[in-house]
Every structure is written in structure tokens, then in C-alpha cells.
């Protein structure tokens, strides 16, 4: 498969781009923030995502979705990134849908229709510490009759406060860091014993700390096989890592486009600042980093869609590379804007904030560089 978008994918991009720019540009985020919106995103927009088919992009056609792949999800996420659109898309339409692929028909039937229609929001409750450490899973799942009892805490659960369902990784046997003994659950947030405390993050989105205080679930909430959730967990993570990479590529593109516009117009010492060679070389270097990040991201998504043996590694490469490139992009954007870039009134700071949150989510560049080293045996 050539490493660029095919015609169908280009067509999708041509649909998503004007939609996102029209319905949910940066002004949409600003308005939600200024209104102190307690959800941090628009349910109406989410339903529109459903109508457009976006939320079901990864859902099989048999289940009412578009039956597309991670490349297509990445197309949506890139536009979400470019417009800083607040949305539970990544956790729901990529993370939860990828999880439910491993679920039985009943569980699919329980959740997929709501996701496809844009009624249901799902969230990933996977992290247990401030730094991403998915290899260790401590939240306990004790057997109880035909079901389970969950006890423990998850954190950095994006949009957890608004989610209808949580994808939860739990320790059903073995030690905290064991590969085996992990079970995944689809937990209704309304389940007794689930409590959610949310905090607004720097980018105005919300993330929650979710407490599971002896939450009782019957066997139907288990995704896939008991004790055998590690492979699915890894696949969920590879999916959202690649997705977050696309979103970061979009964020970087958005910030860079603003910046290029700005330095083509702004004058200092009687000259357009974009004509100064030092800025030109920095902009050209940044462009190169971003192109490389884009290639790595698309590669990861193609690997996922092809079920390549390298999907795990490719996702880590993408997340690290996109994290570094987009970090450079937003730092250069603020610096090249000068003072105005520091003001809340101007949009460029929003890009910096969003980038930081995405860079951290599902492991930052340091985490993934280390992970790559382990995978490659050094």
C-alpha cells in the first residue's frame, strides 16, 4: 500500500476539512471555555459527528459503521487537531471502538449503536499514575459469583466526567506488572460504586480521576477473555497513540499555518520578518520535522489497518516523533509571534496547551523512545 492517502481517503479528508473548520473552529473552543462549559465539549457537535458518520468510522458496516480504518480515523483527528475541536472522539471512536472489536456480540450491541449515532460517549480508564505506565495494572478485579468486583483508581481519564461508559483495565490475577492476568471491562459510568472527580486541564478539556469502590459487574461486562486482555489493551493503546499522533500533526499544522501567515505580514525594522533568514531556516527545519512526523503517523495507521507485526513499534515511533515535532511547532509558533503570542486573546497559545496535553496522553516522547529501546532489545 503506498504511503499516502488513496482517493477514497482524500475524499473523506475533503469532507471532514470544511466540516470541522465550519462547525468547530478554534472560536468554538474559546466559546466553550469562556462560558465555563462543564462538559468541555458540545453534545450537539458530537451528534453531528454521528450524523456525518465520523463516530462510526472504525465500526464495522455490519454494526452500522463506516467500516474504515485507522488511517481514516486519523483524517478526522487531524482536522480535530487543526481546529482544536474539543471532542471525545479519540477515546470513544478510536479507543472504545477498538476495545469493543474484541468484545462479544451482546456487548457490541449494547454500546456500538449509541456511539455510531453520536449519543454515547466513552472514555478510557487505563492510567493509574501521573506518568503513563500501562505495563502495570493494579486496579483489582475480584471474582464474585458469575461476575467481578472492581476496586481501585484510574486517572487522566479524558472526558471521564461526561462518559456513559468506561473502558477499564483491571488486574484479575497475578502481580501488578505481569503481562497476563489483565482483564478489560466495559463499565457503565452509572454503575454503583463508580465515582468521578474531574479537573479542567490547561487546554480547557477535562480529565477525571475515577474511583472504583467495589463496583459489581456481571460477566457480560468483560471484553474478550478473562485474564487475557493484554493483547487487546496493547491494540487499543496503539490505536489511540496513532490517533493522538494525527491530532498532534493537525495541531502542529494549525499552529504553523497561523505562524507562517503572521511572519509573512508582520514587519520589524522595516522588513517582513518572514524574510529574515534565521526565521526561514527555522521554519524550514520545522516543516521537515512535521513531514517526517506525518509519514510516521500514517505508517503506524497503515500498520494497524494491515495488522502488521510492527504495529506496536510503529505506533510508538509515531507518538514520539509527532510529540517532538508538534512540540517544536507550538514553541516556534509562540516565539515567532512574539508578545502577541503570549496573550490569551490570540489563538496561538491554545495550540501550545492542546499539544502539551496530547503529548502526555498515552505516553510522551521519552516514554516511547524508552519503549522502542526495550522492544529492540537494548
Amino acid at each position, binding site marked *: 500500500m503506498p504511503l499516502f492517502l488513496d482517493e477514497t481517503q482524500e475524499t473523506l479528508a475533503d469532507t471532514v476539512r470544511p466540516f470541522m473548520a465550519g462547525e468547530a473552529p478554534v472560536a468554538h473552543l474559546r466559546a466553550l471555555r469562556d462560558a465555563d462549559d462543564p462538559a468541555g465539549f458540545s453534545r450537539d457537535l458530537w451528534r453531528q459527528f454521528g450524523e456525518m458518520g465520523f463516530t462510526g468510522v472504525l465500526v464495522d458496516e455490519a454494526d452500522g459503521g463506516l467500516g474504515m480504518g485507522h488511517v481514516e480515523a486519523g483524517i478526522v483527528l487531524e482536522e480535530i487537531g487543526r481546529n482544536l475541536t474539543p471532542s471525545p472522539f479519540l477515546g470513544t471512536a478510536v479507543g472504545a471502538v477498538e476495545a469493543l472489536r474484541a468484545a462479544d456480540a451482546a456487548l457490541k450491541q449494547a454500546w456500538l449503536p449509541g456511539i455510531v449515532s453520536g449519543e454515547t460517549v466513552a472514555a478510557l480508564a487505563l492510567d493509574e499514575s501521573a506518568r503513563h505506565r500501562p505495563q502495570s495494572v493494579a486496579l483489582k478485579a475480584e471474582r464474585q459469583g458469575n461476575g467481578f468486583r472492581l476496586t481501585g483508581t484510574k486517572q487522566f481519564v479524558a472526558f471521564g466526567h461526561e462518559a456513559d461508559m468506561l473502558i477499564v483495565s483491571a488486574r484479575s490475577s497475578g502481580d501488578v506488572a505481569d503481562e497476563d492476568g489483565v482483564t478489560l471491562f466495559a463499565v457503565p459510568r452509572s454503575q454503583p460504586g463508580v465515582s468521578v472527580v474531574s479537573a479542567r486541564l*490547561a487546554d480547557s478539556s477535562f*480529565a477525571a480521576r475515577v474511583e472504583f469502590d467495589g463496583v459489581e459487574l456481571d460477566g457480560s461486562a468483560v471484553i474478550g477473555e478473562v485474564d487475557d486482555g493484554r493483547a487487546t489493551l496493547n491494540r487499543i493503546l496503539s490505536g489511540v497513540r496513532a490517533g493522538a499522533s494525527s491530532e498532534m500533526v493537525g495541531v502542529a499544522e494549525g499552529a504553523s499555518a497561523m505562524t507562517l501567515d503572521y511572519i509573512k505580514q508582520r514587519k520589524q*525594522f522595516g522588513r517582513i520578518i518572514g524574510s529574515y533568514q534565521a526565521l526561514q531556516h527555522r521554519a524550514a527545519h520545522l516543516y521537515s520535522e512535521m513531514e517526517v512526523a506525518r509519514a510516521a503517523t500514517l505508517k503506524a495507521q497503515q500498520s494497524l489497518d494491515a495488522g502488521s507485526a510492527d504495529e506496536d513499534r510503529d505506533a510508538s515511533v509515531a507518538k514520539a516523533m509527532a510529540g517532538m515535532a508538534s512540540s517544536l511547532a507550538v514553541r516556534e509558533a509562540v516565539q515567532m509571534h512574539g508578545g502577541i503570542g503570549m496573550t490569551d486573546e490570540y489563538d496561538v497559545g491554545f495550540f501550545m496547551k492542546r499539544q*502539551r496535553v496530547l503529548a502526555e*496522553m498515552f505516553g510522551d516522547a521519552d516514554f516511547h523512545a*524508552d519503549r522502542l529501546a526495550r522492544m529492540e532489545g537494548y
Partner: protein
Amino acid sequence: MADELETFRREVRDWLEANCPSEMRTPMRSEKDVCWGGRNFTFASDAQKQWLEVMAQRGWTVPDWPKEYGGGGLSPAEAKVLKQEMAALGCRVPLQSFGISMLGPALLEYGTEEQKLEHLPKIARGEIRWCQGYSEPNAGSDLASLATSAEDKGDHFLVNGQKVWTSYADQADWIFCLVRTDTSQKQGGISFLLFDMESEGVSTKPILLISGSSPFCETFFDDVKVPKDQVLGEINQGWTVAKYLLGHEREMISGMGGRAQGPSLSEYALGKLGRDEQGRLDDPVLRARIAMFEVRSHAFAAMSERFMDRLKAGRIHPAQPSMMKYYGTELNKDRHELLMAAGGSDALEWESESSGEGKAARAWLRTKANSIEGGTSEIQLNIIAKRILELPEG
């Protein structure tokens, strides 16, 4: 001579012991503990007010200014002794002010006798609080593009225009301000004007930063009348005064950066991440990045020490502050990137008690201005290239 200084030191110590309220010997806890003075200043405590008064009475808010202008009339050696003894007792700075740190030296250098007598004592006593009006929306580091105009109306100027990044303009009593008095020349047509912020036609609006609220304001002048004797230095020669001040400011800012600020990066990271089986910070790539940063940070601490030593000895290239400013601010930005990485998702919180209302994230975002304010990193690099390395004009 050394004996006299020792006598002086004893006297100072005794006097401080007797006159510095015990509350003023504790470290400041927040911005609120800073005494800025001025017409509308509300003292945080009686002790703060008393400490300012006794110090101002001796002229020790500005110990090395001449006595006739409200200063202490101390020699450099004596002023140093005072500073040392205040540090030894943990005495707070009695008065923080742009009047002292910025305008004062310029007034002493360029002011008329009348101007000095009018303004310096009020600065020394904390009666008048000043702000600085340099930057404009279309003239950041590039003062030659300055557009705020002061039209000559015979006995007064009529000032119109807008300033940005005026720190504490909403709380200041007077402003020192660059205005264009001649549109036919670029740098030559600028004058350095002093006027009352209560003058008719002056208004201010605070600037919200990406990190949250800030001391910065936008300041608007709409037909503000300013008497012509309120020009500092020659008319159309304000550039000279401004450069004198800018050099001063850059030195101040370059003193920042490096290791001094905030918690130790590695301790913070250890607290957040713990250790691996070999006792190392349990995040190997981040540990390496921190270690590489700490090399630079220690090295820059040595550089700062060297810079100050050479500055005191008068052995500094006049453009060296540009290098300090550049390196120190870039380093400080790196430091906060690493702090954010170590903090993980906790550090991303913006409005939560546990995060101190987003202390880490706001501090991180605030550092992004370090390499913009007081002359961007690009400007500093230009200065180094031209003035130190003597590379030719483009």
C-alpha cells in the same frame, strides 16, 4: 578604611536589629508581600508600612543615591555592607519599584536639577509608583517603528497612541514613556516623556496571558496634555535615555534563569516518579534529559557568577548581558519543559486544588515569555553577532 567599614557594619546591624520589624525578617510568601508603594497602595500589614517608613527616612530604600534626592548617600562599599547585613538578618526589601530600578538611574544621569528634586525623593519614599511605556502593538523590540505621537502645542505636548506590556500600568501613578516628537526621523525623533497617569485621556486595560492573569496592561492615550518640561533628556533624543535603561533592564533579566528558581528539578522528578531497581530515576530517557539539562544549568550558574564578578570589576563587554539574557531564558524554558514532563498528567491540571490551580502549567506557559520580553532571543542573537562577533550587516 577597612576599620571604618567594620564600624559602619556594626552600626548598620544594630540599627537593623532595632528597627526592622520581626515580621519583615521572614521570607515573602507571595506577591502580596511585595511593597510597591504609590498613591493607592494598600499595605499588607502595619509592619510593612513601618519598615518602608524607617528605611525611607534614612534614605536606605535607595542607599547609593545622593542624600539631597532622598537617598542614603552611601559609598558602593557601604551600600554593599548594608545589603549583606540585610541579607544576614533576612530583612525584606522595603520597597520594590520601577522608579528605583529603572527610572531613577536615568533621572540621575539625564534629569535636570528640577526634575531630580521633583521625582527622586518621591520614588525613594515610595510615594509615587512608576510604570514604563515603551512597547507598542506594532513596535516590540523595534522602537524605531514607535507610533505614539506627542504633538508640540507650544506650551505642552498632546499625546495620542497606545502602549502594550505596560507592567502594572493599572496601579501606577506616573509613567515614563517613549513618544514620537518628530515623524521625519526614525530613532532620532523620539522623546522620553514623564507624566501623571491620572491625566485626562489616559486609560488602561489589563492583559490576560496564556498563563492567566498578569501585571501587564494595554495603555491608551487620547489627547493627553503633557507640560513640555516633563521631557527627560533632550527633545528627539529619547532613544539615548531608552538605550541606557534597556541595558539596565537586560542586566536585571539576565540575572534570572539558571538554577535559582523553584524546586530542584531532579528532586521534583524523584518525588513524582520514584526510582528503578538500580536506584535511578524511574524514567530512563527523561532522566537522561534531566541530567543533560543539569550539566547546562550548573555550567550556567558558573557563567552567572563569572558575569557578576566581571560586571563588578568593570570587565564586561557591553553586549554580554545579551548573551546572559539569551542563555538564561532559554535554559529556564527548557527547565519548565522538563518539570512538565516529570509532572505528567498532574502537571496538566489547570483548575484544581491539588495542582495549586495549575501552578506547574501556568509557570511553564509563563516562561515562554522569557525569551520575548526585554528583547527577544532573536534580538539578543543579533546583538551578539554584530557587536561581539562583529559579523557584517545583512
